[in-house]
């Protein structure tokens, strides 16, 4: 570090930052331009006549109910995060702390499915979801995704790292397994649970291929398949498409800013599974 001049160093870092940020800023600026200005040559950077017209167009079209998509995305992503936390934490606790027959085999089986590529499950899962009457409903976006092995693996590793003493003390006080789990282990695991919740929420919010094929009615869409519809419907009316993309981006960017530590922690840990 001492060998590099701070000025040169920060020039490189800021230059690189522009590559990542400029396209996002362009999305933001375009959403407030008129369709004509958005594609003007040479391009204008800042909107000359700033307008919320793109948002009016979006909200005024009943074929593209963006607010509904937004609500659906919030419900699906929140619902799945809650479901993942509930089922994965219980399973992970059993695998980390309880003694039972078949533990190793069950754990190996769960981990083994981390290597099944997602696309293999899409067609049979379409039929299974259909059989449960969940096609074209938000349930199709909430429930199947909670079967992923990552949450169980991630929480099991965390539970294993907790000191046993507190649990042993609770046993001596006569607590049963459920009480230990809910009153000792879960409160100690708040950072890990927060990490998993954020990662699950982001993954679900951004999921694309599955909602594209299991949702049909515009009123059932989440934002990602909705954006594909906007692209088809508004072709070169880019302010409208960018306004939709902005609506889909703002919540996750805010979540990322607030919970950055958790997101990056979760991603770093996922690498250690190899």
């Amino acid at each position: 570090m001492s060998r590099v001049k701070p000025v040169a160093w920060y020039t490189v870092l800021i230059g690189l930052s522009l590559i990542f940020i400029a396209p996002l800023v362009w999305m933001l600026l375009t959403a407030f331009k008129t369709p004509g200005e958005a594609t003007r040559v040479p391009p204008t950077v800042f909107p000359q006549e700033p307008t919320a017209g793109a948002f009016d167009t979006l909200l005024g079209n009943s074929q593209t109910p963006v607010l509904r998509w937004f609500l659906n995305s919030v419900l699906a992503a929140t619902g799945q995060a809650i479901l993942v936390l509930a089922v994965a934490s219980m399973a992970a606790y059993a695998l980390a702390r309880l003694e039972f027959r078949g533990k190793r085999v069950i754990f190996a089986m769960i981990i083994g499915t981390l290597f099944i590529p997602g696309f293999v499950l899409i067609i049979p899962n379409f039929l299974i979801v259909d059989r449960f009457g969940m096609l074209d409903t938000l349930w199709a976006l909430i429930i199947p995704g909670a079967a992923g092995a990552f949450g169980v693996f991630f929480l099991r590793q965390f539970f294993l790292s907790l000191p046993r003493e507190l649990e042993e003390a609770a046993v001596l006080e006569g607590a049963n397994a459920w009480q230990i789990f809910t009153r000792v282990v879960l409160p100690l695991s708040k950072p890990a649970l927060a990490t998993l919740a954020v990662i699950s929420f982001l993954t679900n919010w951004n999921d694309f291929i599955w909602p594209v094929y299991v949702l049909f009615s515009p009123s059932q869409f989440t934002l990602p398949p909705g954006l594909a519809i906007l692209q088809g419907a508004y072709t070169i009316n880019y302010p409208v498409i960018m306004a939709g993309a902005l609506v889909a981006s703002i919540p996750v960017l805010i979540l990322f800013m607030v919970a950055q530590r958790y997101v990056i922690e979760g991603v770093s840990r996922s690498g250690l599974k190899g």
Partner: protein
Amino acid sequence: MAAETATRVRRHGPLTPYLFLLPYAVVFATFVIAPAAYGIWISLHDWDYLLPGKPFVGLDNYSALFDSNSAVYSFFWESMSATGIFTVLSVPLLLTVPLALALLLNRRFRGRTLFRAIYFAPYVLGVAVIGVLWRFLLDPNLGVVNAILGAVGLPGDTPWTTALPWGWVTLVGVTVWWTLGFNAVIYLAGLQDIPRELYEAARIDGAGRWAEFRHVTLPGLRPVLLFVTVNTILVSANMFGQSYLITQGAPGTETRTAIMYIAQTGLADFKMGSAAAMSYLLTAGLLVISLLVFRLFREKDA
């Protein structure tokens, strides 16, 4: 020790662990185990979602993929080669560029967390957002990328989304821009696990920067490198959204990936038997490639 074992045994009933596992086991069995097996069953039938009869056809769906006279043959292999081209072009970049970035960030300086977050930011946006965004930025006639290139005297009419090889440059470039933060963060965690003393020892031995990288950094990163390599190959082979939104398969169907063709065959044309067979064939291919990568890493060990 004996007392400890005794408390452990006594603290829960024999069924308790299974009750804890039950909720997850239900979703896991229904949406992972069952479909993995059910898919094989489907692939052995002429399974058309829209038709009542789904006759058993044995391995016909598989053999059709190798029969140059079948209706699916050329489209399927065109899509497989699209996925192959994309994977071959993007994986090396996604292994090296993020490593360089991680080495850059693996120093102590003010604002490190901020810059790490900035480089990671595109990854928290979904493929739908970055897809429609880059479709706009790279629009051959109306996009800002060509406008800027034209303004500085470079060709301003590159058909980024409509012709080859530009379509591949676009798909690979956008994917690298979008996901390099993910690999960089994993590398960074791996770099921070390498003991400081190894670097100090190397310095005492008079190792230069390059020797340090080759003999300390790379060996220290091996498990992480293995994970990143296998994971990046799998993710690249799963590519769908970028082609779907940015090039829309163009020109013709040349940038239509295997996943796009499988999804279209199975879930838009509802020829599920054939699509399931394609997905298992692709999985078998990926399995072979993953095993080769594991092997490669083990040989380097010896």
